[in-house]
């Protein structure tokens, strides 16, 4: 499969500009890249968070398709409801269109408060693509920590103090957790690798069942970065192997989609971000080393999983 940019550029945008996301926000880029791949009628579900509040300020909307936001913990079950209605209407002979369903939710709405609804919905097998735009904190409410916040990262609820330096403990591996549901398609992606991300969306949208893509998303104020560095960080996350691009089919076939030619040191990724500023100080060298060790181990484990995986 090849992504033809020339053709995509001619399509009517389903997610338009004029929204109030911060300049440089990675979530806008992700939404745009995902929506570029939509060809069939679609309904979007959006969990409470930055993407939702900035694209739906009444009486305006950035969405040129049907869209529903209901609450924070239930993006998966809300879209599962829409999908169930579609299936029922088909069974009753009241609907002919072949619909696709996409849910967008932040890491807070996915790793934390929405995990139960997500787990239930993918276990039941609804047809929908769930895109977690993962900026690694509750950005909408002011940069509080989430289950996706990396170890030692600053957040407004894990501030860097004299006793505690940022978030204690590491983030959970939600991609692996969803893959453990053995659903048809699970992947990690980055808007810095648009070709990879869009191909993944295309693959996911062909499935008559659940799929999940965890997308790393640079956040300007939450990460403490410059708008112009947003996509640079989206690439560095991958080139440092902090955020590997891979996919898992049916919970077993694991493929790494991109091997950096040269695995960059984590500091390349961290040093552009204020939330990790303290890690570059000598006194916190141990924390930095811990984080680097985590990345190295995870990367090796992923390679082992993929090499040994069934095909």
């Amino acid at each position: 499969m090849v992504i033809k940019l020339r053709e995509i550029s001619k399509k009517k945008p389903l997610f338009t500009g004029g929204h109030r996301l911060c300049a440089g926000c990675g979530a806008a880029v992700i939404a745009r890249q995902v929506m570029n791949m939509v060809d069939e009628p679609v309904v979007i579900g959006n969990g409470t968070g930055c993407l939702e509040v900035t694209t739906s300020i009444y009486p305006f909307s950035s969405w040129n398709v049907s869209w529903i936001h209901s609450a924070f913990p239930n993006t998966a079950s809300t879209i599962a409801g829409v999908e169930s209605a579609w299936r029922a209407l088909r069974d009753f002979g009241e609907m002919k269109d072949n619909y696709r369903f996409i849910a967008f939710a932040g890491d807070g709405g996915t790793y934390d408060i929405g995990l139960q609804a997500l787990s239930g919905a993918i276990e039941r097998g609804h047809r929908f693509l769930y895109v977690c735009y993962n900026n690694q904190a509750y950005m909408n409410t002011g940069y509080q920590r989430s289950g996706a916040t990396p170890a030692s990262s600053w957040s407004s609820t894990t501030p860097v103090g004299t006793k505690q330096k940022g978030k204690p403990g590491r983030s959970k591996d939600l991609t692996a957790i969803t893959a453990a549901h053995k659903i048809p398609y699970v992947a990690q992606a980055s808007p810095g690798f648009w070709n990879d991300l869009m191909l993944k969306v295309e693959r996911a949208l062909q499935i008559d069942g659940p799929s999940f893509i965890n997308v790393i998303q640079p956040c300007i104020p939450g990460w403490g970065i410059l708008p112009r560095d947003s996509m640079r960080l989206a690439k560095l996350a991958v080139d440092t192997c902090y955020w590997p691009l891979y996919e898992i089919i049916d919970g077993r076939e694991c493929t790494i989609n991109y091997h950096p030619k040269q695995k960059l040191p984590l500091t390349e990724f961290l040093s552009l971000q204020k939330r990790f500023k303290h890690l570059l100080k000598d006194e916190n060298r141990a924390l930095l080393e811990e984080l680097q060790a985590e990345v190295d181990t995870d990367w090796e484990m992923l390679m082992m999983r993929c090499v040994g995986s069934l095909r």
Partner: protein
Amino acid sequence: MRVVAETANGAVAEAMRQIEPHVVAAYPITPQTEVVEEFAGYVSDGRVRTRFVPVESEHSAMSICVGASAAGARVITATSSQGLAYMWEMLYIASGNRLPIVMALVNRALSAPINIHCDHSDSMGARDSGWIQIYCRDAQEVYDTFIQALPIAEHEDVRLPVMVCYDGFIVSHSLARIEMMTDERVRDFIGSYKAVYPLLDRDHPVIYGPLVLYDYYMEFKRQQAEAMNRALEVVFEIGKRFGKISGRSYGLVSSYRMEDADIALAALSSTARTAEVIADELRDQGIRAGVISPRLFRPFPAKALLQALGGIKVLGVLDRADSIGAGMAPLAADIGAALQSAGSNIRLYNRVYGLGGRDLTLSDLKSFFLSLERAGQGKEMPAHFGYLGVRED
């Protein structure tokens, strides 16, 4: 018509089969469980085409209902107690989005302490959630009301969710004689469903649940409140229309021997039936006693209620839930407000009873009735608020 011996839960499952909604999403909880189990059986046997979604929680049950209803489907759910509490966030979202979802709410006490038996604290906790609430006195009313609920919810003047409330175990699990209609009659009565602004309309994309700030939020809420007020008329009309096909007509407030009553008791649900027994007894002793039971609780039928009260002097209000700290329980507070705005002189005494399934004995009920009678004659000054049938020491 068929006459069957059935529990209210069984009757609701049967009504759901007859209605054959597009989507049912529910989670088990005592005493609602059988509704879900029996309906799941109809789905498994292919007797309905309904998409049944056995969710992982009630929060998701109501979220599925919201998504499915917004998508353009006819949607039903059922729950009790903690299940309703767990849905709380989503109840407001269902009504705020004007989604005509129908719920069977089998009343059960709320924890703590945990208790599986009947009281009304679950539905009373949701009385301000923007759902229409109808309380049923017996299994026949449950069946009949459940069939009326969809046309009420879907009425173009209303478009709001409806909660059909009935007493856990007392009504939900008791075998009763129920007259059921044929499937054709039921389907004819509810009509086919034409969704308004569905998500699943590729030519007319719509937005549900946008961010609405202080510039428009109040207009949204005002419209919702007006729709709720219009439901008074619609519930009444549909109750009458139901009477034409079934012989059982429904209004907003049920009354018993109120025509010439001096004193009366007001109660929701099955307790109203118990109170009728005592009213008969008192009548035999020459005391003109009556009973009223608001069938509709949200919107509150103040006008119909005042009319039903007629010329009584004293009213005792029985509440199966307390509004702890308010000094008056929910039903009494609403009746009190209606009396006050009408400038009525009826004296009101409120008792909380039956929490967690505590039996309301006939003798407790009778002595309360008699104290009202003495209060009417100026011989006694009962407390305005208190608990009935509770250990006092």
